[in-house]
């Protein structure tokens, strides 16, 4: 297995998977119909591609290790976790030899299937598992033993397609919904991308999607280049590979997706003019966006400097995870060294958190996960880092905000940790959201579309009137005699003027009522009492 070859195959797989992401999301009905299988697989595969771009592995074994690690750390969602096992089983076999032959590929497919099956107590057939198992069985056919690797791969892909087509016969939920398994479909598209990459065949055309997911994700990457450049080229018989090769020479974080009539380009480069020239040579260029990333970075660094006056006196680095632009600014203004976007519906991976930890210029780093689902991921990241990392287990943004009020970048880590844990234990969190269905929770009757108030994760009030729900929540968070109340408004928060006056009148003992624009999704208001 050579790094260059694996890189090429992984890119080709990702390109094909991205073209099918929407369709796969729409297929998703198992294990729960939440429409994220395609997206999760793309994010998982992207982390493998990115690791390969950065890899310097010189031996087959080293390539296998890099790929396995990236798959495990980048795994998103159920399908991503299964795929990480498939990848691990596959490359572990290939990593034992430098060359690749048909018998070895067959063993690799067997390894992929066995590794995937090993991680579940009761495997369900009609899923990704069935597809990889049948692929392995196909590769073991006696009459395929002496064919060339490319022929073997084509046979395996055909069998994977066949197995996928039969998944509705094996799983009732698929038959009832009239779909094939989404994870299985993803695996087949990944395999197709690899096989076409290996054989040099052109991938079948798939209509270009509107906004590709890839651009958001790739923006997070660090780059030495100054300009983030995005544009679309429209024309006839556009040659994607050539354009990719040309752009590669002038920048990084390159992504070119589309078909022969339209290509969307994303590249980080110091010479956006040259990138556009390359585009106009092929066809009509549209939708040009050029952003100066150094300005963005500089603005961010300035904000950091304001909160931590001199780098020399930075004693404690802090990484926080939170959703919404306002919350990010808020945490930065309170001294967070790094803020990662994330929360209820978009959890960062351990790799994201680890990267932030490593980028902080102190040996001891505190992490505020700010979401109960992220606490465990933060602890995983802590275990992976060589630095001393302490996770302050904040389960919500507002709880994390309360803890931040005691954070001093210029104090020793131990003092900060102690103070923040103390504040976290004393703070009472409440949140107001909008119910997505009818239910009775904690004795509260909830109607779809009504406001729902929670205090420390227990439902306390629900109704169509926001003010009534807020009063109930605030009454409860202040019941212990706290005198500081902070409100973080969400991206769809209604105007609060009257409500704030009413709150002040209702709670005359309040010493401070602070309102910040948090910008988080799903929660119009988050409150915390200290």
């Amino acid at each position, binding site marked *: 297995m050579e790094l260059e070859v694996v890189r090429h195959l992984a890119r080709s797989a990702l390109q094909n998977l991205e073209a099918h992401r929407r369709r796969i999301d729409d297929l998703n009905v198992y294990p729960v119909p939440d429409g994220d299988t395609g997206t999760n697989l793309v994010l998982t595969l992207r982390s493998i591609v990115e690791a390969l771009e950065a890899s310097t592995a010189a031996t087959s074994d080293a390539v296998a290790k890099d790929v396995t690690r990236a798959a495990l750390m980048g795994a998103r969602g159920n399908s991503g976790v299964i795929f990480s096992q498939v990848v691990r089983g596959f490359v572990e076999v290939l990593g034992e030899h430098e060359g690749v032959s048909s018998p070895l590929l067959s063993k690799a497919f067997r390894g992929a299937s066995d590794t995937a099956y090993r991680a579940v107590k009761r495997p*369900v057939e009609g899923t990704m598992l069935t597809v990889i198992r049948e692929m392995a069985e196909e590769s073991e056919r006696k009459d395929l033993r002496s064919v060339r690797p490319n022929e073997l791969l084509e046979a395996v892909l055909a069998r994977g397609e066949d197995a996928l087509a039969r998944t509705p016969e094996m799983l009732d939920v698929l038959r009832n919904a009239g779909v094939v398994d989404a994870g299985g479909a993803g695996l087949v598209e990944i395999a197709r991308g690899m096989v076409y990459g290996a054989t040099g065949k052109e991938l079948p055309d798939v209509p270009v999607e509107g906004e590709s997911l890839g651009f958001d994700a790739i923006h997070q990457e660090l780059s030495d280049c100054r300009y983030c450049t995005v544009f679309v080229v429209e024309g006839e018989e556009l040659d994607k590979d050539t354009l990719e090769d040309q752009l590669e020479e002038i920048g990084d974080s390159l992504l070119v997706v589309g078909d022969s009539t339209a290509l969307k380009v994303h590249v980080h480069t110091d010479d956006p003019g040259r990138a556009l020239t390359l585009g106009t040579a092929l066809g009509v260029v549209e939708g040009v966006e050029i952003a100066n990333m150094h300005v963005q970075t500089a603005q961010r660094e300035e904000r950091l400097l304001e909160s931590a006056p001199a780098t020399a006196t930075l004693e404690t680095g802090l990484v926080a995870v939170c959703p919404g632009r306002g919350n990010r600014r808020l945490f930065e203004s309170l001294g967070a060294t790094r803020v990662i976007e994330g929360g209820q519906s978009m959890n960062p991976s351990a790799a994201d958190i680890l990267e932030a930890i490593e980028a902080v210029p102190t040996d001891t780093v505190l992490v505020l996960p700010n979401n109960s689902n992220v606490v*465990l*991921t933060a602890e995983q990241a802590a275990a992976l880092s060589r630095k001393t990392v302490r996770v302050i287990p904040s389960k919500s943004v507002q709880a994390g905000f309360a803890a931040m009020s005691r954070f001093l970048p210029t104090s020793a880590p131990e003092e900060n940790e102690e103070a923040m844990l103390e504040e976290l234990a004393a703070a009472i969190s409440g949140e107001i959201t909008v119910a997505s269905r009818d239910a009775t929770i904690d004795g509260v009757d909830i109607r779809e579309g009504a406001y729902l108030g929670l205090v420390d994760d227990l439902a306390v009030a629900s109704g169509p009137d926001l003010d009534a729900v807020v009063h109930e929540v605030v009454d409860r968070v202040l019941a212990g005699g706290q005198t500081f109340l902070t409100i973080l408004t969400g991206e769809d928060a209604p105007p609060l003027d009257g409500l704030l006056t009413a709150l002040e009148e209702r709670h005359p003992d309040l010493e401070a009522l602070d309102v910040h624009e948090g910008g988080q999704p799903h929660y119009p208001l988050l409150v915390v009492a200290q």
Partner: protein
Amino acid sequence: MEREPFVIATTERGRIAIAPAAVAQIVGAAAAESYGVVALAGRGRLSRLVPWGIKKGVDIELRDGGLVVELRVVVEHGLRLAEVAETVRSRVQYELERMVGLPIASLEVHIDGVRH
């Protein structure tokens, strides 16, 4: 001591009730089919207190009309634990809503062990 069945519907002609053990079986089956789960763990906190601890690794209670579910699982080594736990949680919730229809007050997934 036998546990009271959970009433899931009341009609003019009578009540429909489900045994806690049946709910626990649904939860156990959904968990065991979740990717990454290689075993259900030993008895949980609640079942130590009550003699009718019904299903390995699963505790079920009905509190104020809502199901309180506590689940203990063992996960394969090397997987992203947060993703596995989230899959188990969403899958169990989905199966309970689909099959039982009682509101879920809380659903906790504990990873009790990691299998190498």
